[in-house]
């Protein structure tokens, strides 16, 4: 799915674009002092040297905190004239605030997620619950010291690192949880069972099949709540979409997004965009299904 169709990640993500400039000798000297000091803090003054892989991680962490792309030779212009130590401390405080936000997002996800069984989701939530305790934002801010197996409907861009990645992951998971909780759990489970009988143990996203069926029902003007789509309803979808051009099919699906959100009371723009992005992803699958005269692989019943 196209990542840029989704709303921008949380504020202050370190992927924000800066005006870059070539480094100066003065910057290199100050940057080297900063690395030296951060290394001393990392080793707690016990060692003036570190293994190269640790040095590289410390460098990546500093770059993440300062918003520098370590693979580029130029640096954000704003860093050329500031005290790097002060700037580092200031941005470290920002990261600390983001870690607190991680905890809030995690609690919100846990409170919102309906009790639909998924081992991967359960394990992932347990693991991310430990993130604030395990995350060494002072020295290894770019790392994600927890495991997350549960696949999102729309994966977080790999360009995000550290707390930015986790917060974006949780933000997307919260959107999914908030959508799922609008349906009866048993209805969701029925859809998931028809998608994959072993869905409890599989690495399967819960949102995608449920949202797909909700869109299918909205498409033909039905209440999305029951979720399952009977054969005759699927035939109506086929007769509706079949004669349409690709552009018209896209428009129909996006209109279904609007109707579903309205009926379900989804007012949050990010949640609407999330569902809209799924609708766009459905198009090629719908095309294939229509070509073979069978949409049961898209809208389950």
């Amino acid at each position, binding site marked *: 799915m196209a990542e840029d169709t989704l709303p921008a990640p949380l504020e202050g993500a370190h992927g924000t674009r800066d005006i870059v400039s070539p*480094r100066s000798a003065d910057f*290199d*000297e100050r*940057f*080297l002092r900063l*690395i*030296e000091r951060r*290394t*001393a803090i990392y*080793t707690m*003054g*016990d*060692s*003036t*040297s*570190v*293994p*190269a*892989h*640790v*040095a*590289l991680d410390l*460098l990546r962490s500093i*770059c993440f905190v300062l918003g*520098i792309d*370590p*693979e*580029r*030779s130029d*640096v954000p212009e704003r860093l050329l004239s500031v005290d790097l130590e002060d700037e580092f401390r200031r941005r470290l405080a920002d990261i600390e605030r983001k870690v607190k936000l991680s905890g809030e997002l995690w*609690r919100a996800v*846990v*409170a919102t*997620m309906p*009790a*639909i*069984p*998924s*081992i991967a989701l*359960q394990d992932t*939530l*347990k693991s991310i*619950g*430990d993130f604030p*305790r395990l995350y060494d934002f002072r020295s290894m801010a770019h790392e994600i010291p927890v495991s997350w197996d549960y696949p999102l409907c729309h994966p977080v861009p790999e360009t995000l690192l550290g707390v930015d990645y986790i917060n974006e992951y949780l933000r997307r998971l919260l959107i999914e949880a908030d959508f799922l909780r609008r349906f009866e759990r*048993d209805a969701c*489970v029925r859809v998931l069972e028809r998608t994959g009988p072993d869905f*409890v143990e599989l690495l399967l996203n819960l949102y995608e099949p449920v949202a797909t069926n909700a869109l299918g029902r909205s498409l033909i003007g039905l209440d999305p709540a029951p979720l399952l789509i009977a054969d005759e309803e699927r035939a109506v979808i086929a007769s509706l979409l079949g004669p349409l051009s690709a552009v018209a099919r896209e428009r129909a699906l996006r209109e279904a997004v609007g109707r579903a959100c309205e009926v379900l009371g989804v007012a949050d723009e990010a949640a609407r965009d999330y569902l809209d992005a799924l609708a766009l992803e459905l198009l090629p699958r719908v095309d294939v299904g229509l070509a073979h005269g069978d949409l049961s692989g898209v809208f389950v019943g």
Partner: protein
Amino acid sequence: MLIPFGQDAPGLQLRAAVHELEACNEALGRYGLALSAEDARAIVVGRAEALRATDRVEFGGGVAKDLVLAFAGSPYLSQAAFVPTVIELQELFYDFKNESLEQIPDDELIAKMRALFDDVAHGDLGYLEEALFEGLGRAVREEPLQLPVDGQLEEEKLDDVDGAIANAYTLAANRYDVSKWVDETYAPPWEGSSWLDE
């Protein structure tokens, strides 16, 4: 890459290291030793090679100055042998840092090297290396975890436990307990029992 680790250290660091070594001459004089600018550069070049060979990165002047000052008082070092010995000691130092899994602080390792160099190896670098790796290395690897006297580690463990309990409470308070769901809804019909029984 922003900073080319693994390549030659920036000139800035080299200059700092040479300057630090030259500043040791006053202390070295007490033992009849001296470092010329050329000696200092040789030690710094040796340091860069040792770091490269051991795949380590060092900032600032590094340990060269500390090694020079620590070994200057050894009765087994003459002016002629001083610089080559320091260069070899640096290599041994970084190699041992890797071998000891970073568990020995710089100053402690230098003190141990000096003690072994004088008392066990009697100035023989080969013997010093053997003594270090056979003795200290084994001790580091096999040493049981030392619990701090003030119980700080215990408190940290308790904090971890508290965090885990809090997380479990949050999960439980929100019904996010997979075993409950399984009991409620996931009994495979062909067996009539929970899949957990398997």
